[in-house]
């Protein structure tokens, strides 16, 4: 214990030292946030975020009040597909890299606090309700691993279902299903979907012994999932068939229901060059908006009945369908080769109201916490574009090398993000 304390103190000194150095270099515009002590400049993290620079394995720390980049951190491995969750104190970001790397990044010191290689190939992660556990969903070997957020020590390993009929792994072991759509849920739970074995699992970590509820035969190849902001409904999108799988976590005993199984009937599904992502919850009033796999359409679901009540023709196959924080507008980006465009839907009239062309490779969008701005990563022009959500004015461009995901720290306090 004593040692720990010493370690902490020396860490703190290092941290103060770092601040001192960065005061002049990285953030000249801090005046309004600075507490003017002689030696240090205090910085809060509530208006910061991280941007993935996909090709170079780097991330940028950004400030969405100042619309500025504060620092760049390298050495995060393969970030070709990466996502981030935040500690509840909003100081640390946990970056899930493609190569199985889990990196804990310190937004105050601009440094990697800790990094572990936890699998061969991972897809995403989630942080627990109490902020003490971080879970990672893995492709190889398929399963979920759970770590202590403080130390990144392994707390639990949940291997996915074995696939005896698939070719074996290189080391001769039996393949396991890839895991996707991992989210946190109230009651210290993690919920996730198994792509190859067509299942949804709910892992309850509220007690010492982990309890896992498994729902089988939920529909073919769940590719991603989301949870409603109240943590009640978990919905997995299906790739192997048209439709989605719905689990009501307030009525788990009712099992998983198939919804939207009628969409696209009679029409040929187009080749899917990029899997849609289900993130956040594009919901306005009683309607939820989701991408249709293989169609140039956004589907409208009535969340009272879970029936499809409409569809909106859009520019291409949607990847992200995201509501801005006030749910007034819904923003959609598209799969290759139509990924240079963003379209905006008015949630009141359910009509398209705007088409923007930020440029090839618009990969992700992130809204400021109360929604006045949206940041977009534009991969091929190596920049982030910041728009006013009210009048669609382009406010600023920030350079970033092949940017993909943008993640602001306010996610720390949202269920499922």
């Amino acid at each position, binding site marked *: 214990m004593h040692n720990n304390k010493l370690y902490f103190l020396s860490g703190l000194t290092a941290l103060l030292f770092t601040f001192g150095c960065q005061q002049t270099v990285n953030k000249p515009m801090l005046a309004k946030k600075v507490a003017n002590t002689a030696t240090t400049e205090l910085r809060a993290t509530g208006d910061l975020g991280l941007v993935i620079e996909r090709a170079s394995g780097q991330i940028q720390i950004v400030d969405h009040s100042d619309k500025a980049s504060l620092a760049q951190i390298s050495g995060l491995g393969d970030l070709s597909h990466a996502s981030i969750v935040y500690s509840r104190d909003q100081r640390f970001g946990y970056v899930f890299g*493609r190569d199985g790397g889990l990196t804990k990044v310190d937004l105050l010191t601009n440094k990697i606090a800790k990094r572990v290689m936890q699998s061969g190939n991972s897809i995403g992660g989630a942080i627990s309700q109490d902020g003490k556990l971080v879970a990672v969903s893995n492709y190889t070997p398929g399963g979920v691993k759970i770590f202590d957020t403080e130390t990144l020590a392994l707390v639990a390993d949940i291997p996915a279902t074995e696939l005896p009929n698939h070719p074996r792994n290189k080391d001769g072991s039996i393949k396991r299903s890839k895991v996707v759509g991992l989210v946190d849920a109230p009651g210290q739970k993690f919920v996730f979907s198994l792509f190859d074995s067509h299942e949804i699992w709910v892992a309850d970590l509220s007690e010492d012994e982990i309890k896992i509820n498994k729902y089988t035969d939920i529909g073919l190849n769940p590719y991603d999932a989301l949870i409603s902001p109240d943590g009640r409904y978990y919905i997995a999108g299906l790739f192997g068939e048209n439709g989605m799988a719905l689990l009501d976590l307030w009525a788990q005993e009712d099992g998983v229901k198939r919804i939207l199984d009628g969409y696209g009937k009679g029409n040929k599904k187009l080749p899917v060059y*990029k*899997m849609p992502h289900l993130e956040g919850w594009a919901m306005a009033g009683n309607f939820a908006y989701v991408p249709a796999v293989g169609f140039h359409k956004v589907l409208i679901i009535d969340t009272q009945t879970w029936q499809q009540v409409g569809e909106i023709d859009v520019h291409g196959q949607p990847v992200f369908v995201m509501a801005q924080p006030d749910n007034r507008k819904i923003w959609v980006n598209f799969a290759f080769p139509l990924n240079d465009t963003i379209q905006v839907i008015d949630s009141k009239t359910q009509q398209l109201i705007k088409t923007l062309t930020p440029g090839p490779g618009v990969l992700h969008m992130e809204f400021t916490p109360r929604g006045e701005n949206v940041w977009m990563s534009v991969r091929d022009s190596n920049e982030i574009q910041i728009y006013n959500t009210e009048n669609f004015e382009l406010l600023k461009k920030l350079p970033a090398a092949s940017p993909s995901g943008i993640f602001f720290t306010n996610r720390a306090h949202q269920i499922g993000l």
Partner: protein
Amino acid sequence: MNYFNSLTFGILLSCSVSGFVVNALPSEAVEQITPLNKQQKAKLIHLVKQDCGSCHGLTLKGGLGPSLLPADLINKPEYFLTLTILNGRPGTAMPPWKDILSEQEAQWIAQQLIKGIEDAQQ
């Protein structure tokens, strides 16, 4: 956008080969094509890394789709890879790319995958 220009040609070729699944690449047809220039090749590498990379990983070590590194393609002949790119693999998430890529381009990509894509950049 160069790879779209050869779209029409790709479709013509695809029609001509559709009857010969095994000998998929009639060599006389391929020889008539102007070789891909440097710019076209750079665009194809970009496509492989960024767009194939959505599923196979930016470094092609695999993701939702399998690894496309040379060591993992040892038993996959070039024509098999070319056809897989053009026609996809029904029942899996691999889409057909024949509306996007010509046969010449698909074949060139298959060759680079076998050689290793990093080498192809130089």
